[in-house]
């Protein structure tokens, strides 16, 4: 992880997304029109969040298996960055929804689901703060992290499919599902997902290093 190339790649891809996403030609779809450009900034937040939460669960499992506190630090910092991404995803979504759906909060199942998801991880942080002993804290919060992830998956991936969503591509809305995702969009969207995720990983790595140094100083 000390190598430099992926950080440069992440910055380059985000810059490419900024320029390409805002200036390059986008397909015209009914209702969406130019707001389709929000996709390059809103959707990668959720991709990044899910990827990092999954990584966090993997580290929690590794912690429970090995008892190495390093993995617990990885898990909590990944959750912290995921919460940042989640808040940004919610904010960008609300701005977009304000103009497209007419209201910032429309009770869309995906919107509700992501809000509940954030509540779960706020509770996770609260749980960590209420336990003093660091081994105990790591163990109990790893258990909660894994358990929360197991209930988050149906919330984000099954519940929205039981009802119609207002999101583009669901319930007869024009949008970018498998065959509609235009080549021009794809050229920016996939690099955007990779770029934002790399930036998130970089952020997490910095915070992990910071917290390891802090614990060393405390000792």
């Amino acid at each position, binding site marked *: 992880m000390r190598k430099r190339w992926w950080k440069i790649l992440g910055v380059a891809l985000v810059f490419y997304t900024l320029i390409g996403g805002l200036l390059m030609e986008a397909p015209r779809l009914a209702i969406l029109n130019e707001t389709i450009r929000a996709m390059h900034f809103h959707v990668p937040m959720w991709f990044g969040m899910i990827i990092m939460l999954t990584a966090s669960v993997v580290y929690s499992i590794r912690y429970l298996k090995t008892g190495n506190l390093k993995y617990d630090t990885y898990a909590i910092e990944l959750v912290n960055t995921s919460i940042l991404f989640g808040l940004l995803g919610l904010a960008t979504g609300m701005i977009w929804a304000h103009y497209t759906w007419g209201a910032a909060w429309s009770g869309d199942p995906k919107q509700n689901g992501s809000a509940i998801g954030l509540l779960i991880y706020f509770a996770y942080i609260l749980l960590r703060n209420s336990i003093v002993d660091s*081994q105990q804290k790591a163990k109990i919060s790893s258990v909660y992290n894994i*358990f929360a992830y197991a*209930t988050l998956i149906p919330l984000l991936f099954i519940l929205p499919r039981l009802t119609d969503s207002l999101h583009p591509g669901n319930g007869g809305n024009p949008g970018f599902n498998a065959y509609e995702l235009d080549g021009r969009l794809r050229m920016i969207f996939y690099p955007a997902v990779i770029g934002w995720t790399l930036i998130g990983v970089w952020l997490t790595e910095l915070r992990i290093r910071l917290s390891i140094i802090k614990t060393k100083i405390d000792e």
Partner: protein
Amino acid sequence: MQQVLSIINKEVKLEWRNKTAFNSIVLYLVSTIFICYLSFNVKTGQMQAVTWNALFWIIIVFANINGVAKSFLQEGEGRMLYYYTLCKPQVILSGKLIFNILLSVLIAIIGFVVYAIILGNPVVNHVYFLLTILLASIGFAGILTLVSGIVSKANNSTALLAVLSFPILLPILMIAIRLSKNAIDGIDASLMNEKLFTLLSVDAVVIATAYLLFPFIWRS
């Protein structure tokens, strides 16, 4: 198996001897329902189905949190250690879980009966409504048993319990509310089976992860 049975036996006996716990849950249910009846100020059977449904589930969730959650909180430090020397964590969890499921189902059914008497009963398809209650209660009991185990290891327990369990109860609650709304409307059963199956699989996931994770809490 013998050990599981003896743990359930112990829980039931404990509950039976000092009926305060069970009685307090029943009283909690009845008084909450009566407060709702008085504050909505509607005659029996006049409440709209959507409100009826939402209110019912809110009451059930809160009664569950009050009743089921204490399963590990009431155990003293010494008794935990005693169990630890006697049997495997899976056995403890099975005992607690089965007892909590029974308690949770009982809370839901008593709640439904009292609620239906005081506020009227708009349910059309009773079979599916009761199935929803059963499956949701199993899920609630599974989540609350594990969270109660987690919270018993942390300090300032009661406040933390509510905060930790609310968001993870929500997926089950949301499916249950949708299902029971369908049962109230009397929608064709074939349309409900899919959701019922989803609820069942969420329950299975919850209980399976509880079994995997409980040994780690128990050991500390």
